[in-house]
């Protein structure tokens, strides 16, 4: 088992080092949700009335509603960022070097996935700390019970990034990921509005949101912050993680001839 852990340690450390060296990335990862929280949510505070829906037991301000969605947003962007760096690694040849290691490919990809999830979680906790200083607090235990939800959601979104990276041929194509993956996933979810609110305007939009795995990641985080388990969302996220993971393994399958940059 030792080589497995050496690989795990090496890959996770590399991810962490890369993240620490890119201070701009860390700041950007925090600024994005904070702008949503301090500007967008504050502006909509009075405009959007929220009824009491589980896991909440009383009326809440919009800022309180939006925080789990912004935690999801951090993880979504981080997952995609990680996919971007995979494309870069492949262009630079370091990915090829990694995949030649005498270990199963799925393990190497999992290590990579875990590394990016740990980075995501560190970002989310920093964001929650700033939200706490702003006066948005959850039950103390909630900060602990949210951890498994963050791990699961991080793995799901990381796996999605991994799967996407196996199909993206060039770094320049990443803009397409932004337009066709990140934005639809974020806006067509329960991150900004509760699903019942979405149903008021369009049943179709509601149904799309309801099958969006990102919605379930956000709901998993929302319930976990209140020390509750949303079983449906848990199963949905697990299923999506398995599907995205399988797609990534298939995408990086050497028999398929891992897509090479042309030219």
């Amino acid at each position, binding site marked *: 088992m030792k080589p497995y852990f050496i690989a795990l340690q090496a890959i996770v450390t590399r991810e962490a080092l890369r993240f620490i060296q890119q201070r701009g990335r860390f700041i950007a990862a925090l600024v994005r949700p904070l702008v949503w929280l301090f500007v967008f949510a504050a502006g909509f*505070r*009075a405009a959007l009335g929220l009824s*009491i829906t589980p896991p909440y*037991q*009383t*009326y809440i301000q919009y800022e309180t509603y939006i925080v789990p969605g912004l935690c999801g947003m951090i993880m979504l962007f981080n997952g995609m960022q990680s996919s971007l760096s995979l494309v870069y690694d492949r262009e630079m040849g370091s990915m090829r070097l990694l995949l030649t290691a005498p270990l199963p490919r799925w393990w190497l990809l999992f290590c990579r996935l875990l590394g990016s999830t740990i980075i995501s979680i560190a970002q989310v906790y920093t964001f929650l700390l700033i939200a706490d200083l702003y006066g948005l*607090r959850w*039950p*103390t*235990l909630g900060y602990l019970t949210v951890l498994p939800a963050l791990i699961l959601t991080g793995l799901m979104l990381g796996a999605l990034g991994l799967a996407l990276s196996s199909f993206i041929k060039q770094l320049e194509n990443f803009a397409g990921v932004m337009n066709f993956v990140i934005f639809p996933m974020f806006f067509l979810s329960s991150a900004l509005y509760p699903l019942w609110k979405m149903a008021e305007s369009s049943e179709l939009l509601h149904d799309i949101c309801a099958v969006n795995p990102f919605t379930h990641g956000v709901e998993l985080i929302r319930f976990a912050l209140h020390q509750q388990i949303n079983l449906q969302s848990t199963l949905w996220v697990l299923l999506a993680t398995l599907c995205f993971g399988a797609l990534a393994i298939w995408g990086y399958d050497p028999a398929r001839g891992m897509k090479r940059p042309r030219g």
Partner: protein
Amino acid sequence: MPLLSNITKTTALALCLALPFSHAQAEEIWISNEKDDTISVIDVATLEVVRTIETGERPRGITFSHDHKVLYICASDSDAVQVMDPETGKILHDLPSGEDPEQFVLHPDNRHLYIANEDDAITTVVDVETRKVVAQIDVGIEPEGMAVSPDGKYAITTSETTNMTHWIDTETQELVANTLVDSRPRHAEFAAGGSELWVSAEIGGTLSVFDVESKAEKAKIEFEVQGVHPDRVQPVGFEFTGDEKTAFVALGPSNHVAVVNAETFEVEEYILVGRRVWHMAFNTDKSLLFTTNGVSGDVTVIDVAERAAVKTIKVGRFPWGAALRP
């Protein structure tokens, strides 16, 4: 320290859930539902509605006798003050209340009920033992808010249209003073051991504090809720914590309760509750506050130490008054 305060909150809530089981009689909060003609009874231990009792038409003000053996209900559209046995929920009898009774207050002697008759511009004094009207005192138009000083010397009526606080000498049952307040005074309470009188003005959006000795205004409290138009900030009911150092003020359609420092008269915090909050009642140890939210038809429970809403409980349509049954 947020972390510490959260731990305190968790502990307090756990205690709240555990403590009542040691009592034979569970603590209850009784809520009058104006549109349903009912009373919803909330168990303080479980924070759930355990009973719904029918009353006369349009129940608004409710209060228990000091020994909690009977409940008095202002059944406004039945033009009666009903007396209910809280054990059985049966109406024992009606008291002669005058027309359209809205709010009332029970004198410390546990015998004289001072009732505001909104349509008649009078305050009716009823002896609850003989069930007879002792006096009827002319006050301003649309009397509503009622209070009695802790020593029982003064009864107060506020009139919504005249914008006045009327001071009634309970010995002679006569008006001894009238003081102007801001537009539409809705509620009055004595504070600081009976040396201050606080009166809320719904349209004026203020809370006036009077010195009882001189009957002069000593402070005026104003409110400002972030993101809410000032017209919607309408103070109505309010209650004081056990040490009388803090007041919780219901701000009507702003959907917030203000936390006011009763020594400096400064607003320290605003708590989000249900829609159109009007009145409230504490539990016995004053650790929880229950607010009636008329439009949303629910009651929000506030953790007093944490100054945070912890739960909102669905009751009947248009909940109005609240009273504690220990």
